[in-house]
Each structure stands twice: as structure tokens, then as C-alpha cells.
């Protein structure tokens, strides 16, 4: 085995744990993912009605299917198929309902030109080289509940569905998905075309003045203004959110922008 040299080994050992996400990262993605899945559920519910079968089991899938069905005005039959206690709904999932990724993404994102993502997720046949334990005969065990009880000693994030406000609020996930589309587009435009980013942020402010991503919008606005050399405006825009974000990754991002040093 070609081993790493001492210097390379030291680097790898020191950096190994530094690529982990922060709690803020986790919360942000959790919220966005819940909205994106809700958008998928809505698209599927309005189409084939097989969202639940394709979306897996558990409380999240059920809530997302419910949100999607409500948004799309689908029948309750869609929701019932997601109940984890109903074996019939899981025994033989129908062909997975396809969802266009573009439905939840900014137009700037191109569809993959090569084979679809699904090609990567096919489980390979067991390799003959695998140790015996990994291919040993398996026993089937019934699941007592979709979510096993948690040991308080083990730190675990809250269930994904808590990203949505208290139920039933069917409009919230749908709105969040729309907000996300605008903010993601603005964030992407920051480097190449900050003026366009500002335009997208204005659109967001018009439609979702007090939206769930209003703070994120203002952070992006500050960065866009900095990119355009409009430092004074950036500082004004940062003022209402600066104190609230202190100590957070977004706050640190603000403090490392042009509003800190006064340089454009």
C-alpha cells in the first residue's frame, strides 16, 4: 500500500473534521429541502397521483405528500397511500413518478446532459470479494414505528418536517419554494451580474416582503451592493440585520464584506 508521507498525513488528519457543516448550514438546507420536496409532491399530486409511493415512508413523506396534495388540490387518496402503517402502500411501489428538477430550480441551472441521475443510484450486485458478513442471510423485522425512539444521550436534529410552520398551513411550503427559486437565482447571479441579482431581490421583496427568507434576501442584497461598489447603501441595508446575525455564518459573511472595512 502506498502510504501518505508524514506531511500529507498530518494535513489529512488535521483537516478531516473541518469540512463538516455548521448547525446553521444544516438548518438552512433542511428548510430548503422540505420546501423542495413539497414542491415535488405538489407536482406529482397534480399529475400521476403516485407521490407517496415514490417518496418513501415516514412522517416527512406523509407530511410532504399531504402538503403537496393540498397545494395541488389532489384527492385524499394520495395521502392515504403514504401511511407507513399500510403495508399495501409499500409492498410494490409503482414506477417512480418523475419530477422535473426545473420546477424547483432557477432557470439558469441546466439539466444534466449525460445520463440521468438515477443511473448512479442503482445498487450494484454483491461483489464476490465482499466479506461473508456483509452478504449473510438476513432476517426481516417489522418496524414498530416509522421513527425509532431516540436516546437522549445521542444528539439528533429535529425531524425534517419541523421546518414547516405549525400544521395545517399548506401555503407555507409552496411559498417557501417560490422564495427559494428567486433567492437561489439571485445568489448565483452575485458574482457574474450583481445588478441582476439586485433585480431578483427586488422581485422577492415585492412578492414576499416578510417572507421566510427575508433575512437571507437582505444578506444577499448587501453582498450585491458591495459587488457593485455601493458600500454606503450596503451598510444601510445591513443595519437592520447586522445585530441579529452577529456570531452566525451569515453575520460573519456580512462582517467580511465591504460594510466592515468601508472599502467598496
Amino acid at each position, binding site marked *: 500500500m502506498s502510504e501518505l508521507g508524514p506531511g500529507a498525513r498530518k494535513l489529512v488528519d488535521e483537516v478531516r473534521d473541518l469540512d463538516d457543516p455548521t448547525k446553521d448550514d444544516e438548518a438552512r438546507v433542511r428548510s430548503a429541502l422540505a420546501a423542495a420536496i413539497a414542491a415535488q409532491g405538489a407536482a406529482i399530486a397534480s399529475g400521476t397521483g403516485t407521490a407517496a409511493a415514490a417518496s*418513501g415512508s415516514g412522517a*416527512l413523506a406523509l407530511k410532504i405528500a399531504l402538503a403537496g396534495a393540498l397545494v395541488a388540490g389532489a384527492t385524499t387518496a394520495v395521502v392515504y397511500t403514504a401511511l407507513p402503517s399500510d403495508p399495501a402502500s409499500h409492498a410494490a411501489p409503482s414506477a417512480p413518478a418523475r419530477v422535473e428538477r426545473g420546477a424547483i430550480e432557477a432557470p439558469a441551472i441546466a439539466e444534466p446532459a449525460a445520463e440521468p*441521475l438515477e443511473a448512479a443510484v442503482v445498487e450494484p450486485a454483491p461483489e464476490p470479494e465482499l466479506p461473508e458478513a456483509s452478504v449473510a442471510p438476513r432476517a426481516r423485522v417489522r418496524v414498530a414505528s416509522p421513527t425509532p425512539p431516540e436516546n437522549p444521550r445521542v444528539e439528533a436534529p429535529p425531524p425534517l418536517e419541523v421546518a414547516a410552520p405549525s400544521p395545517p398551513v399548506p401555503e407555507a411550503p409552496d411559498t417557501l419554494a417560490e422564495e427559494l427559486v428567486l433567492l437561489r437565482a439571485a445568489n448565483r447571479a452575485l458574482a457574474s451580474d450583481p445588478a441582476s441579482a439586485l433585480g431578483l431581490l427586488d422581485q422577492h421583496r415585492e412578492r414576499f416582503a416578510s417572507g421566510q427568507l427575508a433575512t437571507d434576501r437582505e444578506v444577499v442584497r448587501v453582498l450585491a451592493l458591495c459587488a457593485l461598489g455601493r458600500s454606503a447603501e450596503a451598510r444601510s441595508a445591513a443595519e437592520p440585520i447586522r445585530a441579529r446575525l452577529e456570531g452566525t455564518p451569515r453575520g460573519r459573511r456580512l462582517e467580511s464584506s465591504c460594510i466592515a472595512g468601508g472599502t467598496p
Partner: protein
Amino acid sequence: MAGHETLVLAPQEAALPDAIVPSEDRISRPGVVRSFDEVYRDGFRFVWRSLKRLGVRDAYLDDAVQDVFLVVHRKLAEFEGRSSIRTWLFRIAMRVAKDHRRTHERRPTTSLHDESIATPESSPLERAAQREKIDLLHSILETLDDDKRAAFILGELEGMSGPEMADALGVPVDTAYSRLRAANASFNAAYERRLRRAGGER
């Protein structure tokens, strides 16, 4: 095919309660089919750092992580537990990272969320030093081809065993080991080059 109403466990694993198993270890066991909530809870951190190491830029990490879990959400019903969830997640992450790299190649970015060093308690000086090391690691990873890069991430950074690497990479175990050997050799060479360059600049 295992439906979602069942957990498929090897007999010796069935006796081990999930609650006392560290989060990421729970997705490392082959033969276990889990709910989406559990896969997300236990796999988020692994997916995040894998995508970073596979070359997804900070500005697009959120999107890439979402893409991975949207695929998981769509395909989990078909996951039979022949491999571990972790290796399955890595295969999806490789595909997503490749798409992202292709889409965003050579496009300069300003990240909204590029401060992901998970040690906010450290001093600015320490954070700068950590950032330097992370950048060095990632810049060396950039020099490896896709096969070597994936083998290095799994073998050296994630500490996966040969069979696990083989499963994640979809190759025989011997091939996984030979890729890791080649990756280590390339990594060493790139590291030494950077040291010499840094020395020359002083």
C-alpha cells in the same frame, strides 16, 4: 424487494439499538433500509462534506445537497439494502458533484455560505490557519482524477474499509485498493510540489 414497511437487518445487528449507535455508523451497516427522515438525519453531514471534497463549490453546496436528497427521496423505495446507505449516498453524491462541476465550471462565485469551518469558537487567527489547510487539501484533491479523488476521500478522509470503498465506487475490492494506492502517491507528489513552491516563494 424490501418494502418500506420492513427493516432488513442481519441477525447480529438486530440486537443493537439504533439509539446507542453514533449517527453516521447507523448508515454504514449493509442490509438496513431506513426511512427518509433517518437517512437525512444520519447522512446529511456525510453528504455535505463528500460533495465539498468532490469539488462542489461552496456557493452551490446547498443546491447539491438538496439534489442528492431529492434523488434519495425519489429512489429510497427501490433501495434494497444490499449495500449500506452511506455507500449509496456517496454514489449519488459523485453523480451530483459531476453535474455541478460541469455546470459551474470556470464560473467565478461569491458564496453566501462559505464559512463552513465548524469551529466557530476558535479565534480569527486559528480560523485563518484552518481555512488555509482546508484550501490546501481541496486544491490537492483538485489535481486528482475522479477515480483517485473518490478513492482518497473514502479511504483516507472517511476511513472506509476496502469492501466499503469497493461498494461505493462500484468496483472490485482489489481495484478499490489499487485506486487508493495511486491516489496516495498522487496526493504525496502534489503535496511535495506545493511545499517546494511555498519554499521557493519565501
